[in-house]
């Protein structure tokens, strides 16, 4: 695939590295000479210096041939404009836009940007998961006709569920356990009959929006 990235930011460069390792063709646009120099030293001649919200720059970067356009600069308004230009003027099939708050997500989706990624929320989710401050963390909304949620439940050391199996517990309808992660190994077979231990991470799918009921169950 041919992928054009806007923003030689840490994020943009990490995306480039991952794609290049997978043998994709990557071009990266930025207007900061210093950031571009670092990118070129790291990856070679994949850089285009210029304003990614100008048609000429996008054209130089080969956007007309791109399968995917990823806007990962630190300006949300420029990310938006460049994605709209990639889509409307260069007919790029898939445009992805990085945002840093929930503020613009619904607007950007209305504007036909194919994927809007909240970088802050993604990092926060990761930190929450690792700090285990919350017992239950939503990992992903699963888009379907009946909304479902992929969640992770960490078994607290004082939890009353320790020593019980999942089939002993009275789960609400529409809740199903997919796996248990225990000290770095994954238990997938007969998860229902596995006795829970402190610090186990239970990964499950639920259709309930209200996670409080589940929280009580695992206290």
């Amino acid at each position, binding site marked *: 695939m041919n992928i054009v990235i806007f923003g030689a930011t840490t994020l943009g460069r990490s995306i480039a590295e991952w794609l290049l390792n997978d043998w994709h063709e990557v071009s990266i646009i930025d207007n900061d000479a210093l950031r571009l120099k670092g990118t070129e030293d790291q990856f070679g001649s994949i850089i285009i210096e210029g304003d990614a*919200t*100008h*048609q*000429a720059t996008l054209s130089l970067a080969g956007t007309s041939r791109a399968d995917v356009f990823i806007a990962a600069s630190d*300006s*949300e*308004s*420029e990310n*938006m*404009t460049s994605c*709209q*230009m990639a889509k*409307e*003027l260069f007919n790029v099939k898939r445009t992805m836009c990085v945002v840093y708050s929930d*503020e*613009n997500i*619904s*607007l950007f989706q*209305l*504007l036909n940007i194919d994927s809007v990624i909240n970088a802050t929320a993604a990092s926060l989710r990761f930190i929450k998961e690792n700090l285990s401050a919350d017992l239950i963390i939503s990992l992903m909304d699963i888009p379907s006709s009946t909304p479902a949620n992929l969640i992770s439940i960490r078994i607290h050391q004082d939890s009353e569920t320790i020593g019980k199996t999942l089939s002993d517990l009275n789960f609400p309808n529409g809740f199903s356990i997919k796996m248990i992660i225990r000290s770095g190994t994954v238990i997938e077979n007969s998860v229902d009959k596995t006795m829970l231990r402190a610090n186990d991470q239970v990964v499950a799918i639920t259709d309930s929006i209200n996670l409080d009921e589940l929280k009580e169950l695992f206290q």
Partner: protein
Amino acid sequence: MHSDLIVGFLGDATLSDDLKEIEILDTDLFIATTNSDSINALAVQKAKLLFGVDNVICLISDVSKQKLYERLGVKIVNYSEIIIESLIHSSLEN
């Protein structure tokens, strides 16, 4: 013009909270005139699509963006074009 008809707000016009502060829902016409094309485009699209302001005008300096946003139903004023036109006009007069 009476100065008490003009009220200034300090805020970020790309943020919904700040737009609500200026009673965007009761606004008849929204004009974005910062010197950033992208910030103007973000503010007017938000006003139009999220807050239902029918009449939006967006100041743009770049011709390629003008075509794009006109297609998306935004009224564009391209000030580079206006400046060039008036330069040509005044040079013809002399």
